[in-house]
């Protein structure tokens, strides 16, 4: 069962075949998705009608490519905006949480840590509806009391950002905490011993040490935000991010335009993921 233990040859081959099949299973949906982005047809299905770039660059009906499809471009913009907001917030809170849980002993710490983990095991749709209900409660109360309509508390970009942040922050906390745990605290003492104040020591020694994890957490958070559906779906307003916009299109029927968008997403997220691996490796 490990290379050092002699193994029956059939068993060995069977294992390899199984693993190969598994990776084909993983790759298949993505591969067909990507391939049909280049099909010169109105439908992402066989028969293959020839190769075209039109689903990316086409500008005439019926084949308007991604780069000329304004609603899709706007949705991508919205997704990026939401992703950056969520990731920034998540990394900030994740970092403060990492310091809080690693450096301080206080009453109720275990309980708080447990609460902090909960968003990971609450179904995303529930986070969505609870924030929806709570924000409209506030908005309604404010309206009843002061006759102010706070537009931001109605479904829309702000609620989507808050909703996604509510569980992505846990992820960021775990990633950054894991790195802070491996930090040798005597490095901070050494910095202070060499003349740095407590804050300077953290700024010049601890934060640079955490940086790869913070970048990693930012990218993970961005990808999670970008592809989130369940929470976003309950909180979305008129400015739909990409996943929601694609979902609406898909319900109406699919064209290779969606394959083209999918391919762009795959390329984009793979690039980000590779960037993250590069950052992690450099540490």
């Amino acid at each position: 069962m490990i290379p050092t233990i002699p193994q029956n040859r059939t068993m060995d081959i069977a294992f390899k075949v199984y693993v190969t099949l598994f990776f084909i299973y993983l790759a298949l949906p993505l591969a067909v998705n990507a391939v049909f982005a280049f099909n010169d047809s109105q439908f992402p299905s066989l028969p293959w009608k020839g190769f075209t770039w039109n689903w990316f660059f086409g500008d005439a009906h019926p084949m308007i490519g991604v780069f000329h499809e304004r609603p899709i471009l706007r949705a991508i913009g919205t997704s990026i905006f939401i992703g950056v907001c969520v990731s920034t917030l998540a990394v900030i809170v994740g970092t403060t949480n990492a310091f809080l849980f690693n450096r301080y002993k206080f009453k109720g710490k275990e309980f708080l840590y447990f609460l902090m983990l909960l968003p990971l095991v609450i179904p995303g749709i529930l986070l969505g509806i609870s924030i929806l209900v709570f924000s409209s409660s506030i908005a309604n109360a404010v309206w009843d009391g002061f006759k102010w309509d706070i537009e931001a508390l109605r479904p829309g970009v702000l609620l989507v950002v808050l909703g996604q942040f509510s569980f992505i922050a846990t992820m960021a906390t775990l990633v950054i905490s894991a790195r802070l745990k491996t930090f040798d605290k005597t490095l901070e003492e050494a910095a202070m011993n060499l003349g740095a104040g407590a804050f300077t020591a953290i700024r010049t020694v601890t934060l640079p040490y955490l940086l790869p994890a913070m970048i990693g957490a930012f990218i993970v958070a961005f990808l999670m935000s970008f592809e989130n559906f369940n929470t976003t779906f309950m909180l979305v307003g008129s400015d739909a991010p990409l996943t929601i916009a694609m979902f609406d299109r898909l319900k109406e029927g699919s064209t290779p335009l969606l394959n083209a968008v999918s391919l762009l997403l795959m390329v984009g997220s793979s690039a980000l993921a590779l960037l993250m691996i590069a950052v992690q490796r450099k540490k």
Partner: protein
Amino acid sequence: MTSGRSLGFYLLLAPVLLWLALLVIIPHVDLALVSLRERVGVGQYALSPANYLTFLNEPLYLVTFARTAVMSILATIITLIIGFPVAYYIAKMARGKLQPILFVLCLVPFWVSELVRTFGWMILLRETGIISSLLQWLGLVSGPVELLYNDAAIMIGLVYTSMLFMVVPLVTTLSSLDDSLIEAGYDLGGSSASVFREIIVPHAMPGIVSGCIVVFMLSLGNYLTPIMLGGKDSLWFTELIYSQFIVRFNWELGAAFGFMLLFLSTAIVWTALKLSGQSLEKTMG
């Protein structure tokens, strides 16, 4: 240091408290209150368990609830069975450069959104899809076959979507198993089966449990996969919540449904943790 400490402490404590209180705890309390009220007149509400009674008295709701639970458990088990050998291969059998490459390959599909993945399965499985065409070309079937819109398609999609969350914790725990323990197992006369049962599985337990919890939660809370791959009669519980909130605008009943979902997931996760002797902090943190 001593004087700055308390200020620093409160500055660090504030974000986590604000986050958990405003975005997690109070919204859920509010949701609970909404689920417990009944509209008795225009803008008038009374505390009552009416919404939960509606849930319990309507067979469609109950059946969907149970179906969602059973299928999620099934999806978790299938994911574990499919994923374990792969994780084992990556952690223990792949050597040299192959190991990190296979691991990264496992992650690739999950860098793109679930929607893209599901869409890929639709292209494969539908009547005009690749598999149907392939079967016709091979002469195995005479006409187009619809492989989409049934429970099997949902299962394929759920397992696919959750695979990463099973394989990653499994690879992590299995890599931490010292090879010499397996060697010792054989050296002391163990067979492959007994080594697997008595050494490998117990060691991998935290990974198995955390993988199963996450996969189960993701399946239970999934919305996209069942709605895109499932048929008209394969209703998922999240669809009921969504339709109460967005279509019917009956937030009270929707909130009650939400809590039933939360209750179900908590109950099953808690049972799984108790049965395996693990804790949430250990498996997630």
